C-alpha cells in the first residue's frame, strides 16, 4: 500500500506532472503566478478540490453513465467549490475577500477534471484521493517555481517584501507581470523538466 502510494505521488509530482507532462491547468497557471502569495492560495485551493472531487467521482464511478461522465464530473466539482465558497463567505468574509477571485479559476481548472476522468473514474476511493493530492502538489510545484522567477523579475519583491539591493539589479520587467510572461516561463520549465526527466524516452506530444 505504501509503495503504491509512493508511486502515485512520484507520478503526480514528476513523471506525470499535470502541467509540463499532461499540459493541463494552464489558464490558472498564467493568471496567478506573478505574485508568490497568490500562487500559494491558488495551489491550496486546487489541491483541496482535486482530492475531494477525485474521491467523490471514485465513489460514484460504478453509477456514472459513460456518455455523461464529464458533465457529471464538472457538476460535482462546481457544486463543491460553490458550497465551500458560500460557507467561507458567510463565516469569514475577510478571508473570502482574498480567496473569492480564485473560485472561478478553480472551477474551470481542467486538472481537476482531467484527474477525475483519467484516474478516479477507474480506481477505488483511497488511491483516487492520493492521486488528487499528488497531482495538486505537482501542479503547485511548477506554479511555485514560476512564481519564484516572475515575482522577483516583475516586481523586485518576494511574497511582497522587497528583495535586497533591488535598486542595483532590478528593472521593472513588465512582461513578467503580464500573462504572456507566464507562457514563456512555462515553456522554459517544460523544456528543462522534459529534457531532464525523460532524456531517454522520446514522446511525441
Amino acid at each position, binding site marked *: 500500500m505504501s509503495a503504491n502510494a509512493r508511486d502515485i505521488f512520484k507520478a503526480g509530482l514528476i513523471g506525470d506532472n499535470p502541467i*509540463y507532462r499532461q*499540459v*493541463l*491547468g*494552464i*489558464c490558472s497557471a*498564467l*493568471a496567478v503566478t506573478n505574485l508568490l502569495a497568490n500562487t500559494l492560495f491558488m495551489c491550496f485551493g486546487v489541491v483541496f478540490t482535486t482530492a475531494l472531487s477525485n474521491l467523490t467521482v471514485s465513489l460514484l464511478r460504478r453509477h456514472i453513465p459513460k*456518455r*455523461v461522465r*464529464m*458533465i457529471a464530473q*464538472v*457538476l460535482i466539482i*462546481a*457544486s463543491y467549490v*460553490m458550497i465551500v465558497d*458560500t460557507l467561507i463567505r458567510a463565516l469569514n468574509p475577510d478571508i473570502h475577500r482574498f480567496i473569492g477571485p480564485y473560485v*472561478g479559476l478553480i*472551477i*474551470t481548472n*481542467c486538472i481537476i*477534471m*482531467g484527474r477525475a476522468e483519467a484516474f478516479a473514474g477507474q480506481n477505488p476511493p483511497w488511491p483516487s484521493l492520493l492521486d488528487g493530492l499528488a497531482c495538486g502538489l505537482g501542479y503547485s510545484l511548477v506554479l511555485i517555481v514560476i512564481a519564484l522567477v516572475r515575482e522577483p523579475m516583475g516586481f523586485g519583491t518576494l511574497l511582497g517584501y522587497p528583495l535586497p539591493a533591488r535598486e542595483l539589479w532590478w528593472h521593472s520587467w513588465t*512582461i513578467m507581470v*503580464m*500573462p*504572456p*510572461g*507566464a*507562457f*514563456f516561463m*512555462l*515553456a522554459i520549465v*517544460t*523544456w*528543462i*523538466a*522534459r*529534457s*531532464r526527466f525523460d532524456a531517454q524516452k*522520446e*514522446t*511525441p*506530444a
Partner: protein
Amino acid sequence: MTLDLHSAPFLSLLLVFVSAAFTDNILLTRFLGLCPCMGVSKKVDASVGLGLAVTFVTACTAVLNYWVYRYLLIPLDIVYLRLIVFIVVIAAFVQFTEMAIERVSERLYQALGIFLPLITVNCAILGTSLFMITRPYNAAQAFVFGLGSGFGWLVAITLIGGIREKIDEKNVPPGLRGPGITLIVIGIMSLAFVVFSGMVKI
C-alpha cells in the same frame, strides 16, 4: 469607440461581434479554453473542426442561457445557481447536437463527432455565457456575442495549428517540442492581440 447598444441594431451587432472575436479574444486575452487548444492544435484540419464545433455551441448556448437566465433564474430568484444551470444547459445541448448530427449526416458526424465530448469541458463556452449575463445584451446580441467569441477562438486555434504544422518540420530541441514551443507561440500571439485592445469597446 463606444456605442449605444440600443441604436442602430445592425451596427451594434457588428460591433459586438468584432469586439468579442478580436478585441476580447477569449483564448488570447482571457486565456480560456487553453487546454483543448493545446491538445488539438497540432494540425490545421483538426483545429478548424474543433473551432467550428465550438463556435456553433458557444453561439447557441449563449442565447439559450440568456433565455434561461432571463425567464427562469431571475423570476425564481435562483441566480446564485447560474453556474450549475449553465453547465447543465451546455452539456445537454452538446448531447442533443451529437445525437442530431449522428442521425442527420454521417459525414458531419465523422468530422465533428470526436470533438463534441471535448466541448463540454471547454471553459471558453461556459465563460462566454457567464460574461454575457454581466453585459446589457438582448437575445440577438447575446447570440452574436457567442458567435463572436467562438469565432475568435476558431481564428486563434487555426492560426496556432498552422504555425505548429510549420514548426514540426523544423529542428526544435527535443524537450521543447510539442507543448513547450506551443506555449511560446501562444505567448507571442497573445502579445500581438494585446494591440487589439481598445480598438472597439462595448
